[in-house]
């Protein structure tokens, strides 16, 4: 009797344990599918943490690394695990690829087409030349520290190019740089016919081999290497990033700098020549 009863209880317990295990597994499977990792807040968190409207319009914003021409090794989804052959991750790069691959002495030879492409890409998230660029990825709405973690020094790896801040540290990044997760070409409800000043194709030179002048302000662009350095777009890179003192050869404009100086150089009176 005792034995039978115990066996019966034992069976029930086993069944209950199995049931719990299975339901936990099933729940976990679906919950795992629905909730991406690393998101804050509540249960059915959407993939981007932008405002709900933005999420509704653009549920699949492109990976910023891909947008910038990098390559990304995508992780295997839980649902695909069983069908996936288990092997070592393809060795497209070593751990060294996770460090910034800035090479100051790499030879730079830029074609006019590459330059045109760079200026075009640069214009995508700027209203006009000189406008603060919008941010092509989701941002932490509250903190600036997360911006400077990457943009403080800039970054270049096989998969990612992160531009360095073009100006000194300013504490409230999102005062000027706002999130633009929809991409520049999305239609708006109301069209706007503003046509912004384009970036100059280059600074003027006195003669072909002369150093070009700076064709834009250096205000908010004091870090020349932000755009022209190794973490900048290829088409507008300097050929000599190892040189540290840019303005030694490339003169800025007193007008663009809004300097409180006379726009025309003043001279003392010319000598009076009697004839």
């Amino acid at each position: 009797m005792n034995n039978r009863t115990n066996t019966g209880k034992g069976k029930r317990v086993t069944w209950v344990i199995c049931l719990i295990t299975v339901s936990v597994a099933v729940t976990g499977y679906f919950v795992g599918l629905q909730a991406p990792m690393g998101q804050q807040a509540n249960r059915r968190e959407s993939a981007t943490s932008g405002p709900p409207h933005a999420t509704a319009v653009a549920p699949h914003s492109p990976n910023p690394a891909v947008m910038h021409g990098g390559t990304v090794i995508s992780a295997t989804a839980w649902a695909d695990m069983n069908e996936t052959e288990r092997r070592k991750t393809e060795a497209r790069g070593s751990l060294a690829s996770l460090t910034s691959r800035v090479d100051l002495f790499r030879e730079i030879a830029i074609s006019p087409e590459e330059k045109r492409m760079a200026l075009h890409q640069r214009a995508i998230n700027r209203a006009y030349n000189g406008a603060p660029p919008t941010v092509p990825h989701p941002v932490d709405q509250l903190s600036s520290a997360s911006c400077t973690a990457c943009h403080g020094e800039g970054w270049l790896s096989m998969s990612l190019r992160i531009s360095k801040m073009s100006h000194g540290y300013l504490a409230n990044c999102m005062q000027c740089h706002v999130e633009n997760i929809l991409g520049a070409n999305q239609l708006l409800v109301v069209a706007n016919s503003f046509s912004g000043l384009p970036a100059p194709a280059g600074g003027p030179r006195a003669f072909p081999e002369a150093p070009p002048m700076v064709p834009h302000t250096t205000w908010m662009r004091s870090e020349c290497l932000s755009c022209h350095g190794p973490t900048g777009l290829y088409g507008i890179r300097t050929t000599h990033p190892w040189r540290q003192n840019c303005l030694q050869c490339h003169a800025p404009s007193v007008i663009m700098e809004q300097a409180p100086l006379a726009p025309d150089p003043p001279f003392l009176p010319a000598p009076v020549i009697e004839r």
Partner: protein
Amino acid sequence: MNNSGSNNQYATAHVHRRNFMKSAALATAAAASGARGISLPVLGANVREDDVTWHKAPCRFCGTGCHVQVGVQSGQVVSIAGDINAEVNKGLLCVKGYHVGEALYGQDRLTRPLLRRGDSYAEISWDDAIDVIVDRIESDPQRFAFYGSGQWTIPEGYAAQKFMKGGLSNNHIDPNARLCMSSAVTGFLATYGVDEPAGCYDDLDACDVLIMWGNNPAEMHPVLFSRVVDRRSRGESVVLIDIGTRRTRTTEHCQHYLEMKPHGDLAIANGIARLLVKNRTYDRQFVESWCNFKAPDDANPNLHGRSISFEDYRAFVEPYTPEHVEHLAGVPAGKIRLLADLFGNRDLRITSLWCMGMNQHTRGTAINTLVHGVHLLSGHFGKPGDAPTSLTGQPSACGTVREVGTLAHALPGGRLVANAGHRQQTEEIWNLPPDRINAEPGYHTVKMWESFCTPTGEGGDIGTIWVQVTNPGQTLPHLNRLFHPKKGLEDKFLIVSDVYPTATTQLADLILPSAMWVEKNGIYGNSERRTQQWFKMVEPPGEARDDCWQTIAVAHRMFDRGFKGMKDRNGKFLFEVTAEAGGPVPIWQWEHYYDVNVDQHLFEEYRRFTRLKHKDLAPYGEYVKARGLRWPVVQRDDGTWQETRFRFVEGHDPYVESGRQVQFYHSTTGDDRAQIWFHPWEPPAESADEAYPFLLTTGRVLEHWHSGSMTRRIPELARSLPGAWLEMNVDDARSLDIDNGDRVQVESRRGSLEIEVWLDGRGRPPRGTVFIPFFDETVPVNVLTLDALDPFSKQPDYKKSAVRISRIP
């Protein structure tokens, strides 16, 4: 304009990019076409079509008053740069300022006058539109009202003011600024006897402690906020304290966050005062030399109150122990002691900032005077970095509304319609016959719209409202009472001058297309008493025309028809401008409006009003040369004009008598002393209860300005924040089974709306509080808000409306 003696830093220097390229090729250091001085209207000068010219202008948006350099090419704005020579912003802007130029080019700009015909509109000529307006006014001049804003330029507001009070003998003119800073005005008047902050933005460079009372400058006044937080990057230390009802971007920069219950600010200020008195850390010398004490006179409530002794004051604040304040405000007692210790320390410089949190408050006048009181009691006043400073949300809330006085009870230069002497002075300057100006104050904003939305048979005695430069259909509180009922009232007539279709034009009977910002000449006055001038740079689209011209054209049509009010004592037109050659210039004809600088004429006339309250303005030409000047601007013996950084302080303010150190020369008690007020804590007009368990607060966000009619048409800003959302505490959301992105219904006792939820997004409210920004015209949060008013300032409270929330399945 005269170029001589100009020390301007190319305020309007023509800078030609093409020329720059050419001369740069010659390797000269500089390159620009000649005009070094100042030129009047900038169009049509010797400028090549494809050259880029640069000119100064203040930004179109908030009350900070940043200067921008506007790049114009082929008659279009193509670029914006922060103005490096402007003291306010020193070259920095916020994202709205950088994109302000795009506000002109939304493709649905209004370009023709439109008259309602049933459910649609007919395009009509300006001539006919003016006739329609004049017919409406002449049919009953006393049932006409003018509703403007703190975005009126000074000349626009001045013209509207003169048209109404001088021309129609009608005082029903009020601005949207009534909804935004009138409690700051009553606070200044009750404390100092004269309006506007004594300090200025220079305090932000010098303060050791910055206390933000219900204020989120990281988003609302970002350039000023950066002016403080960027000091830390330079190695300076500043203590930032946020007293608020939800965590914001500002909170993230603060050492101390004091999360308070609504109306907790009243208790906090009294708690600080009590500790200062009890610990004897108040500034005895300052108080005994320059302050009196006041308490409200309940039998006869006014801004004079009743005088009390220091002992009375001590007794009044005695109940506000740190523990009692903790109970009332929800802020830990230790934090109250911390604030009192800071204020009690004479070695620190403490600046307070506030804006809508203290002003949109049914005890707005009370909390404004209490914060001034804490600063006066502790002597944190009058030294650089020691200042109680209110901020404004509109570019000319100070310049146009508070100084020109486009309020139902005011006349220019701090005068009152109820004061016979002030009316007489105004009639003198306007050259009007005696008793032209009505002695009875007109309707304040809420009363004006309430009367407009009440059937004529039931006492609704406003029949026509003309709205310029604002969007009351979205921004008035309790829209279902103060705006929407207009739809059923066929005899009421709404005229709206604007640049884009808005919630207000939805119910308009006549829509007038306006010029905006650099499509016209203008003058603004920012939050720090700085008067700023700019010139027209591009043509407005289609038939859009200046608001000021619209007012003058209507006035002249009435003059033509023989309406007596539009004539002065000598029978001349109220707005007559005489050409140098003699004879009037027909400025009421659009094609002649820019034959002269009408702004300059109106400004020079208005300037005569500014001496009474020692808010002296310099001649127009001085503002052309400068990036704004802070009044009083007083002429020195050598003929130069000197601005004033700190008011009431010897060595800075030229009106303080020698040897007085501090002199409140407009004191309400006539003894050169400021008033330290006591006001008790009182609960909000509406609190959460079982039926409506959440308290809704409303406000702005960084990317959008006011009702969003401009910023939502700027691609970079619209894409960053396309629409409004509801912000709530994650635990509250969980308890209601609400998730990120869910749509919810929000209901108050006054209306309801549907909206999406964004959790842990831009701001983080505590349990029981929710937030909705008001910029989105498709989610009109003001159907929910309360229209309870501050008894003195008549300003409504948009920050505390009880709501209930349910998820829409």
